[in-house]
């Protein structure tokens, strides 16, 4: 299968987000954060995952996009904050995201703030590369 250029992936991701979140196309930029700028709720993330699976014909497991297993691991979390071991596990689990800001305040309730449209595009890009 030929590789899909990043712009084309972005366009399809953009379309999924416009439909799932009732936002305008121009709001969906690479830098826009899902829960902050686009006001996505956790159920929206599930909706988006299903839409991406359909649109790109890929299979995405829950753990790949939202690191629930990391967040629910008692060894990784102290007082609802990720400790150093947890942060390391998180970086390994989701290498596409920029964790530098989160590391300054690793409150697990704020973890979704890290995910931008660009994170999703990179994630899909790596999934497509895997299946090639």
């Amino acid at each position, binding site marked *: 299968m030929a590789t899909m250029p990043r712009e084309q992936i972005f366009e399809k991701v953009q379309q999924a987000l416009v439909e*799932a*979140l*009732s936002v305008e196309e121009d709001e969906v930029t690479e830098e826009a954060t899902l829960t902050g700028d686009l006001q996505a*709720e956790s*159920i*929206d993330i599930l909706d988006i995952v299903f839409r991406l699976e359909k649109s790109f014909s890929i299979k995405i497991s829950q753990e790949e996009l939202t690191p629930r297993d990391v967040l629910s691991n008692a060894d990784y979390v102290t007082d609802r904050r990720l400790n150093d071991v947890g942060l390391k596990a998180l970086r390994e689990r989701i290498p596409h995201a920029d964790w530098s800001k989160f590391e300054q305040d690793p409150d697990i309730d704020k973890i979704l703030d890290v995910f931008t449209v660009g994170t999703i595009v990179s994630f899909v890009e790596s999934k497509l590369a895997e299946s090639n």
Partner: protein
Amino acid sequence: MKFVLIDRIVELEPGQRVVGCKALSLAEEYLADHFPAFPVLPGVLLMEAMVQASAWVVRQHLDFAPSLVVLKEARNITYKSFLAPGQLLTVESECKSLEPGESSFVAHGLVGGKEIVKSRLTLRHLSLADQDPELADLDERLRNEQRKLFKLLWQGRPSGVAADAPVG
């Protein structure tokens, strides 16, 4: 039973915006089924409350000309939490467009200032006489019923009682 999901209109900016409230009581029978061990307002009735609040903007602005205002489309109704008996729901709905035959809204439902549901709604406005001129009398009856209900919800508080909404 009554199918009224807005108890009171708290604010109404003509053609622009409405704020309404709905107090949920365990006396409401359907809560016995939804659910016996966990009574909460069914999600679709949260939407119904948003539709009814929005419809008052349409009726008031068009001076009750359409006899029926119904849901044409709801998009991305997202539920975040539940409404339990004893709680007060506040519905805020902002009008995005309002034509004679159709309108669109962005609506939110809040409990204690916290959002529990949001949605985009499109409403259709109809009159039966458009289908059949013979039904004009039915239109008039529907309009009168809606005018009465509107009066009850918007001005129906006993004199001397503050117009403030109860605190959520």
